């Protein structure tokens, strides 16, 4: 309870106690004050408690030397020719933001595209994807200085094939060690 309430309570008790003793002594007889009898106290055995185990620090990942996917930072994917962050991607980035704030380490956000379109325009589009993911993380409190941005365009694909499924896999913002 708060200190001021406690003092108030003590004051009330004190006054009450004083009042009681004064009121109790209202008869004509003089109060007899007796010393309380000494209480026999058992000898106190000093017990040394067993030493507490050293508190163990929780095991943290070696963030600086690990690929971000190894400590839970996941990639986000994009629609064809687009760099908008989808609802699904927002969920992934929310989790990434929490982990990255905890880790406090710098990561590279790399933009990728599927093989359609020209080499140069895809590098520019990849950068837009990486920056969109980066900006969203910054808006959730990840320090901007901890997020570097680059783009490989179509030149470093994850899936080597030429199907829709391969293309979808390659349209992403990927997190890597800088």
């Amino acid at each position, binding site marked *: 309870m708060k200190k001021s309430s406690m003092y108030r309570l003590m004051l009330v008790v004190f006054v009450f106690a004083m009042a009681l003793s004064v009121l109790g002594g209202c008869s004509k007889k003089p109060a007899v004050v007796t010393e309380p009898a000494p209480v026999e106290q058992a000898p106190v055995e000093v017990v040394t408690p067993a030493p507490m185990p050293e508190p163990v620090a929780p095991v943290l990942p070696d963030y600086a030397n690990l690929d971000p996917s190894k400590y839970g930072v996941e990639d986000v994917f994009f629609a064809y020719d687009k760099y908008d962050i989808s609802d699904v991607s927002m969920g992934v980035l929310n989790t990434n933001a929490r982990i990255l704030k905890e880790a406090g380490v710098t990561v590279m956000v790399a933009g990728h595209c599927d093989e359609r379109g020209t080499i140069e325009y895809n590098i520019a589009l990849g950068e837009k994807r990486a920056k969109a993911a980066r900006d969203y993380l910054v808006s959730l409190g990840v320090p901007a200085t901890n997020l570097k941005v680059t783009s490989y365009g179509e*030149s470093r694909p994850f899936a080597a094939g030429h199907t829709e499924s391969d293309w979808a896999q390659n349209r992403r913002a990927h997190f890597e060690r800088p």
Partner: protein
Amino acid sequence: MTRILRWAVLGFALAMSAASAPALAQGGRAEVKIDHTAKAVLKTDLRMGDFRALSGDKEVQETAAKLRAVVANDLLLSGLFRVGGAGFKPEELPFSWTIDATVEATAGGGPVTVNLNLLTWPDRQLVLTKRYRPGTEQVRTTAHHFADEVVRAAVGGEGIALTRMAFSRGAGNRRDIFVVDYDGEGLLRLTANRTLNLCPDWSPDGTRLAFTSYRGGQQGLYFLETATGQVKQILAMEGLNLGADWSPDGKELLISLSKGGDPEIYRITPEGKIIKRLTVSPAIEISPSWAPNGRELVFTSDSSGTPQLYMIDREGAGKRRVTFEGKYNDSAALSPSGEWLVYATREDVVTQIIVMRPGGEERRVVTDVSWRNCEDPSWAPDGRHLVFASDRTGVSKLYVYDVVEGGFRQLTFGNDPDITPAWSH
């Protein structure tokens, strides 16, 4: 150990003692008149004569045979000649010219001595004679050098036999800069830095190759000295440092930088200092390419919603749109004469090479859908040929196209993708 630029070495090794002035024939007849007005589409008929080995030794004989084959091939590939002895019987063509040569061992040892001659036909007036002393690695270069002289003397044109293409080869995490002679020989690898290197561009004097590399973990602009192989970092701004294009006078470059937020076109010095920012917009601006007059440039912008071609002057004024057909147009380049514009256009499933006048007239689709994805066309200095990348075989390879005659020639082979070619000047 890789050799970097054999023709630079040749420059020191050549001992060109013979003059190239037209020679007077015996008897004091008048100087030969050379008609330079023949149009490019009309071919000049040339007869390959004897390339005589003046001694029996193997090196001399092989040199003679090799010289003859390479000179003939160079003249054929120029598109300007029909070459007798390479598909035509001598009697079938009304030849105007003939070439012959002698190759002999040199007294005292060392490189062989080669004399190459260009004469009129049938009267055999000597128009051009050249003497070379090529080392064994320099025989092709010697042939190329002479072929260019023949093009100049016989047709008044600019030969491309000494030109080369730089390009990016590799897959996955590693793409390196390679160079190949224009005829497909002499492949050299110039970088081996275990990362992505792409979009090379030759300086006009051929001494430096600009390219984008992800060395050091981020994009940067680098120059490679072609004589020494040394690589130097020029720029590593935050974001894109992409698509460098040397100006025709070699004094500056165009490049796309996104350090300001989104990619814009800048002019920079070869030392990496920004001269001027040319575009200001929230859109993507990339793929800048100088006009041959050095006063304006073509580039790509998606300010209209999708990538289209625009022109602007060197101060950033006078922006005007150039392409109105197709949803996605990129990678433009004006020909050396400024008469043609080549670029890549994307339809749904393929990307095609288009050639047209800069004003949009005479628009021609160069590669049909069987060529699949075609990108990054680059002009030869003759303004007649261009090189581009196509994955028609399943892997991206380089092909040469003749704008005057049509016709394609595969330039590179093998299993690794070749992309972003640049033809030397």
